């Protein structure tokens, strides 16, 4: 009996390791490919690209930081061509942060309204809000462009922020989180004489931090990864966020692949770090509050 249990455990461990390796290979390989190649110049990349052998892939020679230097605008050619990924990264970072920060207040207030506050015909209003999530972005983009143009937003930094400072999906999600908070907490505050705003500030907000984090991360990532809207709303190279800047590197001439890969690594690094940092905090708060995330 004991031997059977031990064998079972060994089998489970082996399965775990196998599955672990499989997942690692599938998910990390393309990224590792990009990361590894970001340290090579174009010639070396293509010399080792096809046909694929383990030896060609893992070779250490031809290491160069040229790709990164070009991306960051530190080489002569880059300066001449006006390439500077840090500017694009800053634009993306600023716009993402701005959206998250504003949405934190605006969307939470709206979610509080729908979840808690009595209002006639509230449900119809909610259905109208949720319905807007359904229309595909590409189509709305054209009239949205007209609207934004009318408001004088096109080709400015605010074009990246203002249309997105709140989102129906975010409001919808937050409604779920707020609904989870037991009404007793509200009641306790009411008994203490709090008005609705104080309830929002002191009771609701602290209790849906995991929800806020989830939603904040999602919005940040949405704005960071946005491609289509900035592509059409922003024309000035100086104002291009990171995704557009990456796509713009694919000109009709053969491009500097080492720089392209380096750009991609630089573009992904901040948000990966952000996620890793937020992840710890996120899981801790979920575990400690005991509320379903």
């Amino acid at each position, binding site marked *: 009996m004991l031997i059977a249990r031990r064998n079972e455990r060994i089998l489970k461990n082996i399965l775990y390791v196998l599955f672990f390796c499989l997942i690692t290979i599938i998910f990390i390989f393309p990224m590792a490919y990009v990361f590894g190649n970001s340290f090579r110049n174009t010639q070396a990349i293509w010399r080792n690209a096809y046909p694929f052998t383990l030896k060609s892939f893992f070779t250490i020679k031809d290491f160069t930081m040229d790709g990164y230097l070009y991306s960051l605008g530190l080489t002569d050619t880059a300066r001449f061509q006006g390439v500077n990924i840090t500017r694009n990264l800053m634009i993306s970072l600023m716009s993402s*942060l701005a959206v998250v920060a504003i949405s934190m207040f605006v969307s939470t207030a709206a979610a509080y309204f729908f979840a808690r506050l009595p209002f006639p015909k509230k449900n119809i209003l909610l259905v109208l809000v949720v319905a807007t999530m359904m229309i595909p972005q590409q189509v709305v983009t054209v009239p949205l462009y007209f609207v934004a143009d009318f408001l004088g937003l096109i080709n400015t930094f605010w074009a990246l922020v203002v249309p997105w400072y709140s989102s129906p999906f975010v409001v919808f999600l937050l409604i779920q989180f707020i609904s989870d908070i037991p009404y007793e907490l509200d009641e306790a505050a009411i008994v203490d004489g709090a008005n609705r705003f104080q309830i929002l500030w002191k009771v609701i907000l602290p209790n849906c931090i995991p929800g806020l984090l989830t939603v904040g991360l999602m919005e940040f990532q949405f704005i960071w990864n946005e491609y289509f809207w900035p592509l059409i709303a922003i024309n000035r190279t100086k104002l291009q966020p990171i995704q557009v800047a990456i796509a713009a590197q694919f000109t009709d001439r053969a491009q500097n692949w080492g720089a392209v890969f380096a750009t991609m690594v630089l573009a992904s690094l901040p948000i990966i770090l952000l996620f890793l940092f937020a992840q710890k905090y996120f899981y801790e708060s979920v575990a400690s509050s005991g509320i379903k995330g």
Partner: protein
Amino acid sequence: MKRSLLCLLMIVLAVSLFAQGGSEAKSSTQGPKPVTIRVLKIDDPLEAMAFRDIVAEFRTIENGKYAHVNVEFDVKPFAELFPAITRAVATKSDVDIAMVDGPNVRHFAFNKVIKDLSAHFSAEELKTWAPQSIVEGSYAGKFYGPPLVQSAQLLWYNVDMFEQAGIDTSNKDGWKLGPNGDALANFQKLTIDKDGDGTPEVFGANTDGPWDYFYGVVGRSAGEKGSNAYKLVADDGITFTGYFDAPEAIEAYQFQQDMVYKYKVKSAQEITNQMFAGLSATHFYQDMMIGTQKDLFPDFNMDAMEPTYWTTPICHTGSWHYGILESTKNFDEALAFVKFAASDAGAKYVWKYKNQFPANVNLYNTIDEFVDPENPRHLLVQYFQKAGVPRIATPAYTEYNTLFTEFWRSLMAGEKDVAGLAKKYAAEMTKSAQQYKGWNK
């Protein structure tokens, strides 16, 4: 926690207010009011460098007559430029000049998007550019804009691979395509499959982007000059049935597919930098290859010969043209800029950075690389003059090109009924062009 959130918000808002500072170049305070002209063009770092110099010199010509003019560039990736121009027009935005892809000049002229410039260019001035460029930049007999550069294609090849395969390169004439032609025989010699697994390590021929610029010539080359296949579209510019799917053209499409699947001398999908990476012995492309090779692959031993053909040697020509939008409020300045940029003085800068075949006759008749008979660029000029044709004259070029790309992708994917596929797409092309009926009356 909440307080830090509030602080974060304040900081973010404050910083973002500063983030949108764009640097507007300020011109002199005296003299005429500063004017800004906006140019919508393709995103290309080399062109960016060229235009930097062009703008700098533009502001000094004629004793600084245009020193008060700022030129700003809005750039888009290639696939987005056409929609961007249409959007700019739809929103009446303040774009003055748009760089229009040659075949689309007609489309925009038909929709009265760009201005007719015939009155502003004398016959003498028009001689600055190659006749093919003038044709491409015209519609219904009127001139709409001078070209940025020109283009033609050659068959570039890996000299070492050719030597190893024992191919005679003293004669630069193009090889004939077809099941019995020397093109196939040579490609087969160049295709290497050492391990015999059915997938060559080196392909004889290469595969390019599946659009009309590279592959529209396949069907056209199969016809005699002036035949339906050669014309690709009827004279009305909107009927493709009977032209795109002419019998000789279908034969040529079939052969292209056979090169991939039957003879295996060509890869089914495009592979970036195929020749430079050592995966194909040849590459059918414009003269930008020279710049790429010098910059990125300096050890590569490359030369060029005339491209392959079926019955009639042919290659596509054409490039971007400067178009002045109807909605411009600064016509005089825009016109002056266009004239300067396209003149020999301006085009010189484009040549300097982009290293692409200029459209200015004086330039390619005097620059060393084009005059030296040993240099492939000389071959390029000769072939351009001998076999270069502009792309088809139709206002429905974008529709046609989109459909052509779909057709070619399906062909390269191994579609069994090639004739049926060609007929189907010819019908669709005709259908999508119907809305322009009467365009050239």
